[in-house]
């Protein structure tokens, strides 16, 4: 167990170091130390502090948030196939982004600030719609919520596609890229916002780990053990949706990370949420760090959407874990 955590942490640190050095300008450890102390030349300082580090932290945080979000949704719904994207979180964000570009063709406003806000609003709008549709007299059934999510998500995606056909080529490519998942708008302001909100939500989820454990047994067992199942389900799903909405706002439509990283963690440390949540934080950030590294370097200077890279490197490892255990 400790070994698993150590390996993941080493992998993560190595990935961060590789990412710091991924690009035209290489940065040596001594130079790095200088810069952190406040020295270094202006251009290197700029490269590290304003370009690379915000980007690294953004992708790492996005991976972590999506993974934990998926972990919660899978546990609460007792469904291995569940992930934030299934609820239409990404689709909602995509719709709002595409609709904005159609309605306001001349980008007079700064997109870096507006787009995350739009995306987050889209995610939340779909989440609320799912919830309203899935709610019955007896409260909320996660199974029903997932089914509603699939339906809503498909409908919303179709509308997005129709809207996208009306976009000029460059905007079309932008939205397409965005929907496949790509880290953008990586600045310290977003990093700070993401860090604080994910930290709070993540701590909340960790605090709820014994409830997640009980919920993952079965509805009846959870009730029998004294869990307020309906209320806890809504609260935990709310936290998970907020996390994935935030990540989607800066990382676009990354669906694979939220599905696979919790399973990787589960195979490595077991299903007890007290250990599973921290492990998922690590699998999510490790996968996204390396995916981002590859997406930036493989076809440099062009970037491959990081969501696609995450799927390409995550899928084989996931299959290996499934076959092995």
């Amino acid at each position: 167990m400790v070994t698993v955590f150590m390996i993941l942490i080493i992998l993560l640190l190595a990935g961060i170091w590789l990412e710091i050095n991924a690009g035209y300008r290489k940065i040596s450890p001594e130079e790095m130390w200088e810069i952190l102390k406040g020295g270094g030349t202006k251009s290197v300082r700029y490269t590290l502090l304003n370009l690379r580090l915000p980007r690294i932290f953004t992708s790492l945080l996005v991976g972590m948030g999506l993974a934990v979000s998926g972990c919660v949704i899978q546990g609460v719904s007792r469904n291995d196939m569940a992930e934030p994207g299934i609820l239409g979180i990404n689709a909602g964000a995509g719709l709002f982004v595409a609709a904005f570009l159609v309605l306001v063709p001349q980008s007079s406003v700064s997109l870096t600030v507006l787009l995350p806000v739009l995306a987050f609003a889209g995610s939340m709008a779909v989440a609320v719609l799912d919830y309203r549709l899935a709610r019955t007299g007896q409260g909320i059934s996660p199974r029903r919520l997932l089914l509603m999510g699939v339906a809503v998500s498909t409908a919303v995606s179709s509308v997005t596609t129709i809207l996208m056909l009306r976009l000029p080529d460059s905007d079309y490519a932008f939205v397409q890229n965005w929907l496949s998942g790509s880290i953008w708008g990586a600045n310290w302001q977003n990093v700070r916002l993401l860090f604080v909100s994910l930290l709070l939500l993540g701590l909340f989820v960790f605090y709820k780990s014994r409830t997640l454990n009980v919920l993952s047994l079965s509805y009846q067992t959870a009730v029998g053990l004294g869990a307020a199942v309906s209320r806890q389900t809504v609260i935990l799903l709310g936290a998970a949706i907020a996390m994935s909405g935030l990540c989607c706002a800066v990382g676009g439509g990354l669906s694979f990370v939220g599905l696979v990283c919790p399973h990787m963690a589960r195979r490595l440390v077991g299903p007890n949420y007290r250990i599973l949540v921290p492990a998922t934080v690590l699998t999510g950030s490790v996968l996204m760090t390396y995916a981002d590294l590859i997406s930036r370097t493989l076809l440099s200077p062009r970037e491959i959407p990081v969501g696609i890279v995450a799927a390409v490197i995550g899928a084989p490892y996931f299959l290996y874990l499934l076959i092995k255990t």
Partner: protein
Amino acid sequence: MDAVLTGEGISVAYHQNIVIPAMDVQIPGGNMTSIIGPNGCGKSTLLKALSRMTPVREGHVFLDGSQIAKMSTVEVAKKMAILPQGPQAPGGLTVKELVSYGRYPHQRGFGRLKKEDHEAVDWALSITDMEELAGRDMDALSGGQRQRAWIAMALAQDTPLILLDEPTTYLDMTHQLEVLELLEDLNKKQKKTIAMVLHDLNLAARFSDWMIAMRSGRVLYKGTPEEIMTKKTLADVFSLDASISRDPWTGKPICLSYKRMDRSVY
């Protein structure tokens, strides 16, 4: 004997389907009670209604004299443990972890196990003879061991009352006996009140102090095994023509052979 769990005029319906119409029922304290009846008679539904799994449309359920609907669910969970039919554990969960989940209603905050939690878990593992399997994955257990692990979880919950829905399903004869003997020990030595839905009449008669016989959502008969295991009762409850005898070892009534009312044996 006072009843610890009672339903007063409870009716249960799934959508428009009334499964239990206005029933009065009592689970006597300190006893081992079996609920029997044909498939679809509502015995599992009754257990669910008594344990707040399924809402009652009318009437009230009382636990230790308090109305269950007005108690907090944690408060209920400190008095009554429930083992549903065929419970499922997530893959990779160890026996000890599962048993420790039984401490849920007693925990607060982050859920780190305290001294009394560890004591309760160890006690539950030792009573169910699961100490040596504590580190095993639930997936790696046999059916009988798995059922003992779930019973251990219910024991760790440390409640005076335990409800079980068909605890012997999917088990062979030996392991059915093993589970029921464990429950009997819990009842006799640990003074737990036990109420369960059972399919096997002879096992129900052998291990119960009290039996409740249901048909079509109603309690037709209730009484000691001597009172329930009669030709007339089994005819009314199961539409069976039964030959009742006496178990030469336990002295309890047993159903030696049976046939459907309208058929001959051959």
